[in-house]
């Protein structure tokens, strides 16, 4: 593992892991590591918000624990749950023994019967601080957001039957949001904040090049130009960087060395994900090509 003592070192380190970040984003990550505060990342879909958590965990050579949020996500699915069936079996097995009721109770409410969900896992890591990714936090309910407040400020979880568990190593927390709703101020105040936008032409070319080193320069330029152009239009779903990479990859897989009308039509589905969008773009692009 290399040293990460300044933002520019982070940029370099990320680059080795095929992730292109600018100085500003690197500063945010640097603060995440140094201040040990959660980092909230917002931006349109497909600009590498989730990816950075993965890369960061590789960079720190630590575990990545991921919690995907959705509407109705509750404590059972996010923090812990007692393994009810196993507890029943445990009681059955103890029936013949001479243990007192207290001992029996103690036994079935021990770690053995605890199903650890991502949040609990993240604070029980024994050897090294893990990276905890809380993905699409805006999709979860407000109750859950409120619950997160406790975790994110003191990094401890209370289980009534077991007591309070405190993190030995504070996890590095990355939260992502697509802004489908405004997050509460209380949560935001506990986080560092960074907005990732679509990259410009040069940066996007750099990103694709990093991922697909074998790509022809001409093809690369054509692809990225087109995608940048798509983003200016009023499409139903604006393509992100991951779509650009998909597109480049599929064109390469099909053996194209530069863009032509046939290649364009054949592979448009990898970058645009709606019939209306595809028809609109076909009408405007294929004719001039």
């Amino acid at each position, binding site marked *: 593992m290399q040293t990460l003592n300044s933002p520019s070192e982070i940029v370099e380190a990320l680059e080795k892991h095929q992730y292109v970040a600018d100085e500003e984003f690197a500063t945010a990550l640097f603060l995440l590591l140094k201040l040990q505060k959660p980092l909230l990342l917002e931006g349109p879909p497909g600009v590498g918000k989730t990816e950075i958590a993965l890369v960061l965990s590789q960079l720190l050579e630590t575990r990545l624990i991921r919690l995907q949020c959705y509407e109705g996500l509750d404590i059972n699915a996010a923090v812990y749950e007692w393994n009810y069936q196993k507890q*029943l079996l445990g009681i059955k097995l103890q029936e013949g023994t001479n243990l007192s009721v207290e001992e029996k109770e103690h036994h079935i409410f021990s770690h053995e019967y605890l199903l650890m969900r991502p949040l609990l896992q993240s604070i029980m890591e024994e050897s090294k601080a893990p990276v905890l990714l809380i993905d699409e936090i805006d999709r979860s309910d407000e109750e859950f957001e409120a619950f997160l407040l406790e975790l994110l400020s003191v990094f401890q979880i209370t289980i009534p039957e077991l007591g309070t568990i405190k993190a030995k190593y504070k996890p590095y927390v990355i939260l992502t949001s697509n802004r489908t709703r*405004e997050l509460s101020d209380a949560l935001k105040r506990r986080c560092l904040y960074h907005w990732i936008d679509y990259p410009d032409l040069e940066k996007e070319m750099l990103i694709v090049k990093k991922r697909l080193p074998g790509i022809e320069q001409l093809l690369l330029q054509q692809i990225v130009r087109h995608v940048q152009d798509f983003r200016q239009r009023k499409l139903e779903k604006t393509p992100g960087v991951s779509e650009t990479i998909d597109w480049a990859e599929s064109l390469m897989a099909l053996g194209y060395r530069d863009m032509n009308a046939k290649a364009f039509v054949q592979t448009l589905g990898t970058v645009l994900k709606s019939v209306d969008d595809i028809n609109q773009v076909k009408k405007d692009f294929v004719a001039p090509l």
Partner: protein
Amino acid sequence: MKQQAFQTNSIAESVVAFGQYVRSHGLNVGIQETQDALRCLKEGLISDKNSFRYALKTIFCTTPEERELFEKLFLRYWDTNPVDMQEKKNKTSVQGSFNKKASASLVMLGFGKTAAPEDEGRNVSGANETERLKRTDLSKLNEMDAALLEEIAMKLFMQMALRLRRRMKEDRNKGQISLRRTIRRSIGYGGEPIELFRRAQKPKKQRLIVLLDVSGSMDKYSYLLLRFIYALRTYFRQLEAFVFSTSLIRITKALQPNQLDVVLATISEQADNWSSGTRIGECFAAFNNKYGKLLLNGSPSILILSDGLDTGDPALLEREMIKMHKRARKIIWMNPLKGMKGYAPEARGMKAALPAIDDFRSAHNLESLLDLENILANA
């Protein structure tokens, strides 16, 4: 308060003062953030101006809009030269305050135009009075009644919101263990209740998007409808509100108890909004383009409050309505004109929008608004 970096004596002091400075310009920066900023200094981020700026930006800002504002404030604070500052001395903070005009909202809405004949002092209002007012068309109120109605409306709206909330709570309790099913199933396991069954699933919480028409033709209704939206907000955890006439404005954030007057003032300042031709189609297009992808996720319900008198292209409105309909659970359109006898949705815009509407209702008096409670509760 120190307004610029050169007025301070040490770097720590200027960072603290900078925190105060951005706070006075509306950023939510408290002691915690300032502390974090000082810790950045310790980490050596000060050596480079850009990384210092990025670091403070990460700590101080919470939305893209704030980030833009921050850039400006940062420059103004750290890069100001004392020499340029002479004439600006007595300028106070930028945050303007709306001078609230007492009951001006009513005048603006056209109630005030009818010089109220103060014939009888109708100060006492019995139950009958309430009933009468509930059924009175909002456009036919005189000034006296308007004030009274506002009071009654507020009370009734709040009651409605409370009933809706209670209903949710009761439903939630149904998620208990269903003993009957659990025991029935346990027979297969030799009497051990291995699988637990719940009686009912939690009801899905609704998300509601409200689009309120504030054009000239809606004048007399808009004010009360805005109050109505505010009342709804207490029930829905995710309510997004917009007003539109010639352009679309998002007012979600402004929907706070003491800010309704400010909202009205802000909207009325944009003179082309109140009392001018409506371009519903274009506004909806703007909604779909700008907010559609963000807000029309997970099929929310959409409530449109408009009379459908559109001066734009009906074909556009139809297209946009269909787009919205595809991604929404339900579109409810409340039209104040529908309460009139013999009304038929003949206006070009209304006709075009009709196929994409799930529920077309009237909104001409209080009663019709309160009816919405049942629809929302069962949706």
